[in-house]
């Protein structure tokens, strides 16, 4: 059984997607998808357990041994990201039932869950595969299904947002394809472990440098690194609430994982950070992302859009950690990958609760809403505290590691800027809290009731996780450090 865990991780949702299409009625499709997502989570936990015991796990598809066949390979970092994706999927789905029924026409709900399963398949596939071309295929599976999911939003602007994302996402994916092609040209292999060996003798050629540049830009488009983030705010704002929560917590994280895989495993840290100036470029862009996106978030009246810009800023933190290329920096980046999934997931779920009752998440409509929907707004407040990085929350843990990494590298200015951008987060979270808690309620919102329990429970599960992993950091920090050490080739 454990021998096939790796392939089951992808096959379960992949095979379920067409089955889901055949089911009649939205309730059946939802129940089926929910079961599948929990099976995926159980599988991910087993996988992580096996990987922690064995170090890494490899699976030859169809028993064709690598490097000729497609190899799936999982180490601590990938098992960790698989767990993030699987658990966010499993938490968002119970929430999705009411939210999706409210936001999507009944005849499309079955298709919605099919796309959701395909998106889950793509995201998981990207993480477990050990083959560069297979990665591109899974990337396109997840991207095409997420364009569809976003376009299902109620507002007509969801359509233009999906179109914009499709154009930019395709350009990014094509860049990745060019990069993979150029690497194949020089080495004659697509297997990542094999590529890593064969690239170093030919590293000092223009083709390999071009491949590296294409891959970096392509993946940066996917992970919404400033200034390639233009698709993200619209996509997250107009997508259905459940989709915003799912994608915000997983899609960019998986893209960051791809970047890590290419930088550290395929090209190696010497090439990526010494022969190429990627460390300087990424750390500069990351700092600008933190400051600019946080500032822009301050001026957004649509709260989902505000959270989307905050996501761009948070991606900046993750990339900043990675660009330092030290164990602490990488640990900070990876731990924030997990923590940001928790906090943004929770905040977008709270937005979904508000949207269900109010039909809007515009800041003017939230006046005094805390009295009508105390649990939802408390979740928003606590999630916001985590976003700011208040002690006892996961946000604090990430920032602690990140500031430590910056100081280790003698980058005082960067450390100060991290703290400054946290202050910007205080400002944009407080703006919402002030309106929701201290303004008199509007007439129209007097009859608004609290969101149903099926939606509040998943939200509060994520909020609870924010505090649990903020207080007991032993699990996440140990995993992140081990993943960082594997990437840098230290220790195991």
């Amino acid at each position, binding site marked *: 059984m454990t021998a096939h865990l790796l392939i089951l991780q992808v096959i379960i949702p992949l095979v379920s997607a067409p089955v889901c299409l055949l089911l009649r009625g939205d309730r059946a499709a939802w129940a089926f998808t929910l079961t599948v997502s929990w099976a995926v989570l159980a599988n991910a936990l087993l996988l992580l357990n096996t990987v922690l015991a064995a170090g890494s796990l490899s699976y030859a598809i169809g028993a064709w041994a690598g490097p000729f066949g497609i190899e799936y390979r999982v180490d601590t970092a990938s098992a960790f990201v698989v767990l993030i994706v699987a658990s966010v999927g499993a938490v968002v789905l119970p929430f999705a039932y009411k939210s999706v029924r409210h936001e999507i026409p009944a005849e499309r709900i079955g298709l919605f869950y099919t796309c959701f399963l395909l998106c889950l398949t793509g995201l998981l596939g990207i993480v477990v595969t050990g083959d560069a*071309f297979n990665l*591109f*295929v899974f990337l*396109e599976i997840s991207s*095409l299904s997420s*364009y*569809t999911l976003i*376009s299902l939003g109620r507002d*007509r*602007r969801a*359509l*233009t947002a*999906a*179109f914009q994302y*499709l*154009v930019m996402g*395709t*350009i990014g*994916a*094509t860049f990745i*394809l*060019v990069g993979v*092609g150029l690497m*194949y*040209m020089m080495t004659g292999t697509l297997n990542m472990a094999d590529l890593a060996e064969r690239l170093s003798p030919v590293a000092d050629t223009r083709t390999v440098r071009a491949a590296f540049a294409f891959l970096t830009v392509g993946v940066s488009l996917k992970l919404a690194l400033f200034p390639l983030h233009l698709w993200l705010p619209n996509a997250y704002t107009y997508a259905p609430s459940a989709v915003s929560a799912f994608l915000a917590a997983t899609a960019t994280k998986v893209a960051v994982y791809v970047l890590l895989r290419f930088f550290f495993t395929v090209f190696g840290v010497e090439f990526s950070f010494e022969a190429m100036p990627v460390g300087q470029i990424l750390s500069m862009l990351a700092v600008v992302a933190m400051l600019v996106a946080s500032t822009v978030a301050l001026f957004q009246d649509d709260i989902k859009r505000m959270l989307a810009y905050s996501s761009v800023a948070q991606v900046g933190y993750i990339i900043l950690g990675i660009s330092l290329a030290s164990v602490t920096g990488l640990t900070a980046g990876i731990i924030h990958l997990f923590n940001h999934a928790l906090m943004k997931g929770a905040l977008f779920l709270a937005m979904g609760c508000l949207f269900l009752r109010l039909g809007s998440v515009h800041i003017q409509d939230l006046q005094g809403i805390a009295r009508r929907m105390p649990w939802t707004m408390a979740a928003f407040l606590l999630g916001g505290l985590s976003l700011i990085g208040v002690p006892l929350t996961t946000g604090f843990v990430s920032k602690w590691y990140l500031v430590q990494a910056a100081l280790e590298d003698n980058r005082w200015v960067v450390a100060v800027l991290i703290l400054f951008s946290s202050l910007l987060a205080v400002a944009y979270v407080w703006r919402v809290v002030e309106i929701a808690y201290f303004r008199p309620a509007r007439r129209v919102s007097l009859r608004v009731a609290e969101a149903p329990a099926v939606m509040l429970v998943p939200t509060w599960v994520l909020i609870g996780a924010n505090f649990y992993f903020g207080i007991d950091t032993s699990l996440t920090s140990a995993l992140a450090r081990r993943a960082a050490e594997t990437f840098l080739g230290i220790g195991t």
Partner: protein
Amino acid sequence: MDLSGFFSYWGLYNYWIVVFLMMTGFYMVIARPNLVKKMAGLFVFQTSVFILFISMAKVKGGTAPILVEGVSTYSNPLPHVLILTAIVVGVATTALGLALVVRINEAYGTIDEDEIHSQEEES
């Protein structure tokens, strides 16, 4: 007419074609306000990469990779197969993109990007 001088001057001219097509497609995506033309540009952009892969599969003096007696040099079939997959992905992307354009046309009554923007600003 002897073209060998021309070819040796331009070297591996396939790659120039790839670059030309890629930039043409990219320009269309950026510069055209018409969403259907944008999609066409995007497809040209993707197609250029197909040619890149197929060019790298060429082996000098090699024939089609089919087992025949008396032939020992074949083109590399792997990039061909990869590109079959990429073509499928490209077709799916174009289909989805055009479907979105149809929906946009239903919702806005136009497929011109500038008009969509001005409609958004009015509302």
